[in-house]
Structures are given as C-alpha cells and as structure tokens.
C-alpha cells in the first residue's frame, strides 16, 4: 500500500507542476493578490463560481499545491511509522520540508509581485520536490527492493553488474537536465520566452546575430537543450549497448527518448505558437518528467552500490549513516524475510 501511495504522491507532484506551468503561461500569477487567503476567503471556502479568468489557474494551483502538501505530510508520517530504512524516512522529512518551503516561496512571490529570483527559486524547488517524491516512490517499490535481494551474485539475477561509466554519465546527465530546467525557468520568469522568435534557427541563423540579456538567456536554453539531448543520447546508447538485457534500465531509457523527442517538439511549438499556454505548460511538465526519468535511471544504475551502502547495516558506512536503531530494525526485517 505504501509503494502505491508514494507513487500517487509522485504523480500528484507532476500534476502540481503542470498547474504551476498554467499559472505562468497564462500570466495569472497575480490574479489573486492575497495569500494564503483568496480574496479574503479561506482557500478551501472560496466559491467555485468566482474562479474566473486568471483566478481559475492561480487558485487551482493553490488547491492542488495544498493537496500535494497534505499528501506529502501523510507520506512522511507513513514512512516514519512503516519504513524500516532510516534514509528513506529521512527522504520523507526532506520532501516535507521542501514542500513547505515551496509553499512559502509561492506565497512570497505573490506578495512581492513575482520577483524573478523568488519565482525562479519556486520553479526550481518544484523540481526538487518532484525528484524527492519520485525517489521515495522508487525506493519503496517492490521492484527496487527485489532488485538486490538476494545479495549473493546470481547469473540469473535482475541486478545489473556495477557499471561505473553508466553511474557517472547518468549523474552528469541528471544534473545537466536540472540545470537546463533552471535556465528554462529563468527564461520563463524573465519574459525571454520569445526573445528569439523563430525555431529551430535563431533570427535566421544558427547563432543569433545580435544579443541582449533576454536573447542570451533564451539561447542558453536552446544550447542547453542540445547539450542535454546529446548527453541523453550518449547515456541511452550506453545502456542499450551494454545493458540490453536489463529491463529496469532499458525501460526508462526508452521512455526517456520518447520524452526528450516530445520535449524538443514542445519547445519548438512553444515558440512557434507564440507561447500557447497549453503547449507551454506541457513543455514545463514534460521537462520535469525527463528529469525524474533520468533520476530513476541514475538511481537504478547506482542501485547495487546504494544497496550495499544504504540497505544493509554490515558495512561501517552503513553503521555511520543509519545509526543503531535502524540497524536493529533492518536486522529484524531481514530476519522476518528470511
């Protein structure tokens, strides 16, 4: 039940990011001037009939955000009560702290009239929250747990052999995608989304012929997209060549490739459609999906090592990281499983 709930929380975070994208894409960020209330009403008592114009998007975002916040509170408590691994419980607390911070940032950005720095931080932290909920969903899943049990190497095991090249390139790619999303958020919140009005060229050239700060930000996002696409292609190629038999790696790679192709298309369409709000918002949420797919691949690539360090309490590192109480819990769990 916990894995299902964790997956539900992760999915709801994606919905929240889409709702946030709608707010920015429709320019509705200040259509509700007060916070945490909505035009003086407590958020949940605001009449549906009054959700008109920009209020619809902004208020909907607040409702979804508070729902996700509540779900993360439940998840953190659930992990606290049912999860034997201390580091997973800590992930729950971290997700809770992140979503509370995220809510406060959202309020501040409204009350301070959308300052770029706060709005960009709000957008960037949203990705972190999504990464945390996705990680929790992954590491509580049965597949993750079964993947490294039994721990004795077995030719028929689903455990991929350790591949340090993959481990490294997966981390680099995930970080690069996150940086690319932050650049994208900067572009959105500084109004640089149409600074280069054509696509795929830039003012008819590969490199813009003239520059200003907005053009620079916009072009950085395009250059970042090219770099990230290359990294994803390289990582995918590596997985498909060296780990063809490992479904847990191949599946996210295939999803990744589909999402990246979609993302490039949505990016181009965002420009060509003059930032149509649906296309623009889909670009935002799809970017987040590219990121968490990369994260899942990275975590699975590191799973053997993570299992050694985090899932057992035999190693000195695990003793240090997990503490004695978890050691007892893990031992108990292992014994129960045995």
């Amino acid at each position, binding site marked *: 039940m916990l894995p299902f709930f964790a997956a539900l929380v992760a999915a709801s975070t994606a919905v929240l990011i889409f709702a946030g994208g709608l707010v920015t894409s*429709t*320019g*509705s*960020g*200040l*259509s*509700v*001037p*007060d916070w*945490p*209330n909505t*035009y*003086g*009403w*407590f958020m949940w*008592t605001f009449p549906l009939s*009054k959700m*008109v*114009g*920009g*209020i*619809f998007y902004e208020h909907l975002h607040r409702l979804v955000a508070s729902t996700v916040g509540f779900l993360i*509170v439940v998840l*953190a408590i659930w992990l*606290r009560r049912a999860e034997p691994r*201390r580091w997973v419980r800590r992930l729950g*607390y971290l997700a*809770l*702290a992140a979503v*509370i911070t995220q809510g406060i940032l959202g309020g501040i950005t409204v009350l301070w*009239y959308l300052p770029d720095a706060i709005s960009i931080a709000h957008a960037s932290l949203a990705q972190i929250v999504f990464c945390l909920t996705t990680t929790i969903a992954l590491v509580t899943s049965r597949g993750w747990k079964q993947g490294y049990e039994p721990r004795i190497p077995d030719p028929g095991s689903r455990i991929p052999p350790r591949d340090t090249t993959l481990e490294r390139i997966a981390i680099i790619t995930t970080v690069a995608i996150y940086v690319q999303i932050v650049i994208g958020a900067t572009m959105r919140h500084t109004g640089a989304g149409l600074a280069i009005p054509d696509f795929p060229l830039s003012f008819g050239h590969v490199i813009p012929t003239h520059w200003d700060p907005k053009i620079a930000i916009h072009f950085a996002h395009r250059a970042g997209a090219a770099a990230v696409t290359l990294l994803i292609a390289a990582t995918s190629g590596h997985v498909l060549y060296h780990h063809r038999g490992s479904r847990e790696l191949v599946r996210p790679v295939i999803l990744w490739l589909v999402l990246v192709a979609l993302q490039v298309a949505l990016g181009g369409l965002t420009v060509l459609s003059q930032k149509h709000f649906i296309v623009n918002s889909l670009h935002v949420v799809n970017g987040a999906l590219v990121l968490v797919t990369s994260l899942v691949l990275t975590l699975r690539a590191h799973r053997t090592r993570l299992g050694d360090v985090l899932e057992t309490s035999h190693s000195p590192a695990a003793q240090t990281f997990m*503490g004695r*109480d978890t050691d007892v819990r893990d031992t108990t769990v292992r014994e129960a499983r045995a």
Partner: protein
Amino acid sequence: MRRSFHLLFCTVLCATSVALAACGGGNQTQQTAPPTEGGAAPATPGAAVPATVDAATAATVTGKVTFAGTPPPAQPVKLSSDPYCEKANAGLKTETEVIGSDGSVGNVFVYVKDGLGNRTFPAPSQPVVLDQKGCHYTPHVLGIQVGQPLQIVNSDDTLHNVHGLPKSNKEFNQGQPIQGMKMTHTFSTKEVMIPFKCDVHGWMNAWIGVLDHPYYAVTATNGTFSLKGLPPGTYTIEAWHEKLGTQTQTVTVGEKETKDLAFTFKA
C-alpha cells in the same frame, strides 16, 4: 529521531495555525482596504515657487493628434474566460488604437513636459475616478497629479484585481471581489506613464500619467486636446500613445494667447 519528528510536527502545526489565523472568512472589505502611501506632493527643494497663475493672462494650447496611414482595425476581445464579462460587454474591442476614419487619434496623453520651471502646484483634493465597468477600464488613459487621490471602483459583478506597475512609484496589487468596492490610491512621484492591469482579465489595461502640475489632457475620439490656464512662456509639449510612441513639440505662448499644435503619428 523521535525528538526531530516532534520538532517537524510542531513546525507543520505552527504553519497550519498561521494559515488558519490569517483566514478572513467573508470580510473582503478589510482585505481590499485601500493602501495609504505618499500623501501630499513632495516639496520641491530650494527655489520652489508656489504657482500663482493669473487667469487674466493665462494662455491656452490646443491641438489635434492624427495618424497618417491606414489605421489598424480594433480587434474583438475574447471574454469567454469570465461568463459575466461575456454577458456584460459582448462586442468589446481593443482600445489600444482608437483611430477615427479621418485619422484622428483618441487616448493620447498630451502634457507639458518642460517649461514650468520651479513652480509648484497643490494637489487637488477631488479624486480622479478609474472605473472597472463591463470588464474594461473607464477611462483607458487618464492623468492625475502627485498626491491627488485616485479612486478605483469596481462596478462589475465579478472579481477584479487592480495591479499598478509603476517604476518610480510603489507597485501595488489589490483585490476587489465585490461589486461597488472602492479603493483610493495616491502617487508620490511624477511618472509618465504607469500601466494598470487586471490579472484576472488579461485584456484589461489602463494607463495613468502622474504629473506635478495640472497641464495635461487626454485626446477625445476626435483627436483634439486643450491645455488651459498656462502661464505665458515657452513649453515642451509631449504627446504619448501606448503603441504609437511619443512626439514632442516646443511652443511659446504669450498673454491670453492660444496656440494650436498638430501631432501626426505614422505607422
């Protein structure tokens, strides 16, 4: 571990309590209480001279603003995001370019940009009214003096937010969720022009010119304007349009004299 969990739980509880404590229920009037900032116009430092314009010698500058070329047609506004607006003002068109068949341009802010020297003018106590009616601002362009109250009214049976985006003055954003609500705002610094918008209804925008003197006008739909009561002298007159840009002319007026100016914007 247990202690850190309790700490976390208390944090969440406190945050929830703060959120609940901030709930205003139905008390929207308090929520949208008008901000009070600025107040009287700042005193001009040094050699400021209180203006005493002799009506017997005052001059007038009149004129007309026209557009050379084929005027772009006003576009219908899509109001479907708010059923009230759709019903209240079906057929609303964009007010960016109000250009008559003879090329006369309305909604142009014409004002004395320079030439009044150190004269100071007291701010009128009578408010200038900006109404939100039929889901658009009336008027679309207006002028006001520093320190003069701007009364913003919601005549619509729908929610508006009044969002002023000045650069020299202080930005503000107030909600007016109930029909008939009013708020008053004053500006502390002259600024031409300040955009106003409603973030609920993306098509709603207005422009306000804030000056430290009373010599300004907004052209009527026939493109005409009149600046009355000017002390004799030489002035720089600027005509500002939200899309066509600005034009300036210099004019010298003697006692009781009336001068006529013509501003022509091109596509």
